[in-house]
């Protein structure tokens, strides 16, 4: 009986010992793991020490950039406004030039009418002279008048090329006017750039908020938005090419509609934008 008790006790003790040894092995393994992990943890701590100030600097840099962005955006608007003012001034001058050219043209018209009436008067003077062969003094006088009229008409003759000068100046003025379409197109390009800045600004502000950095009082961002085409280009050769593509597409669409259907875009029909 006592022997049984001792055997049982011994078995329990062995079990405990085994458990203890198992725990020791586990602790040892843990130590080994910790030993192995320690350098990583040290690296990690070092990294956090390094990255902390870096993040702080990055956040500062982002904040500085973010504060400058509304100003950059406003500067783009200022450029648009300045080109608009300058273009308006050029258009005003072009209008003035066109007005002056109109005044000149009516003067030229008047001069050519005068030249024709001088020529008529000269012919009449010569005809009259021929009617009085018996009066050489009168003939001489009339011939002198005719010569005077010829000289006067001649001095007006030098302006006969002015018509062409006026016409080519008008053409130049219209070309300048056409070229000023550049203002609208660059304004659209600037509006696209501004929109991009505003979007980046919003993203940076979101990021800064996540980093715990609240938005500082910056410039007013509520400015009027321009509507724009991000692909706008100022190039007459490109627009001519695009126009040809548009014309072809338009023709086929309108033909479809003429046959009673909705305009259809056929498979394989190329984009109207070759650029």
């Amino acid at each position: 009986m006592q022997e049984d008790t001792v055997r049982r006790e011994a078995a329990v003790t062995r079990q405990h010992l085994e458990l203890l040894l198992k725990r020791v092995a586990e602790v040892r393994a843990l130590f080994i793991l910790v030993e192995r992990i320690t350098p990583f943890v040290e690296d990690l701590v070092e990294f956090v020490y390094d990255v902390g100030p870096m993040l702080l600097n990055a956040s500062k840099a982002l904040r500085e950039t973010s504060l400058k962005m509304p100003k950059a955006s406003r500067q783009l608007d200022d450029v648009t406004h300045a080109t608009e003012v300058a273009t308006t001034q050029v258009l005003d001058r072009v209008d003035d030039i066109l007005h002056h050219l109109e005044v000149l043209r009516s003067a030229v018209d008047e001069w050519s009418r005068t030249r024709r009436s001088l020529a008529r008067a000269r012919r009449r003077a010569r005809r009259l002279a021929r009617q009085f062969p018996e009066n050489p003094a009168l003939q001489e006088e009339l011939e002198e008048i005719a010569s005077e009229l010829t000289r006067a008409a001649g001095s007006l003759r030098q302006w006969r090329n002015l018509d062409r000068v006026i016409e080519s100046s008008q053409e130049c003025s219209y070309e300048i006017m056409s070229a000023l379409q550049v203002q609208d197109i660059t304004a659209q390009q600037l509006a696209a750039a501004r929109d991009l800045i505003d979007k980046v600004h919003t993203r940076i502000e979101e990021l800064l908020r996540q980093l715990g950095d609240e938005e500082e009082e910056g410039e007013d961002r509520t400015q009027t938005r321009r509507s724009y085409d991000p692909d706008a280009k100022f190039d007459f050769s490109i627009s001519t090419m695009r126009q040809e593509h548009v014309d072809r597409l338009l023709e086929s669409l309108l033909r479809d509609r003429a046959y009673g259907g909705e305009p259809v875009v056929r498979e394989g029909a190329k984009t109207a934008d070759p650029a």
Partner: protein
Amino acid sequence: MRFLAVDDSPTMLRIIVNTLQRLGYPEVDGASDGVEALEKLRRGDYDLVITDWNMPHMTGLELLQEMRRDPRLKDIPVLMVTTRSVKEDIVQAVKLGACSYVVKPFTPQILKEKIDQALSVATGR
């Protein structure tokens, strides 16, 4: 012939008005967006609308849509003058009833050609 030119760019509006006058159409009014254009269209009689696409408040396409809904305005021919020239845009404009389409920057010759086209489509209706 009385035209209404619509563009949010004051420069472009002036260029269009001047070009039209040079082409022999002296009666041209201007509007700076679709909203102002609709107001003018509802008050006056116009033979042709020449409109930009990209405008604030109401785009050229929305203006076209509004015009087609209004029995008094639905038959006025509309010419789009825009930098946009991708296929989807043109299809959309034609579906809404744009008569013709001019790509910016344009030459006076192209504008004249497309005005004639838009007016002939209108009279042929």
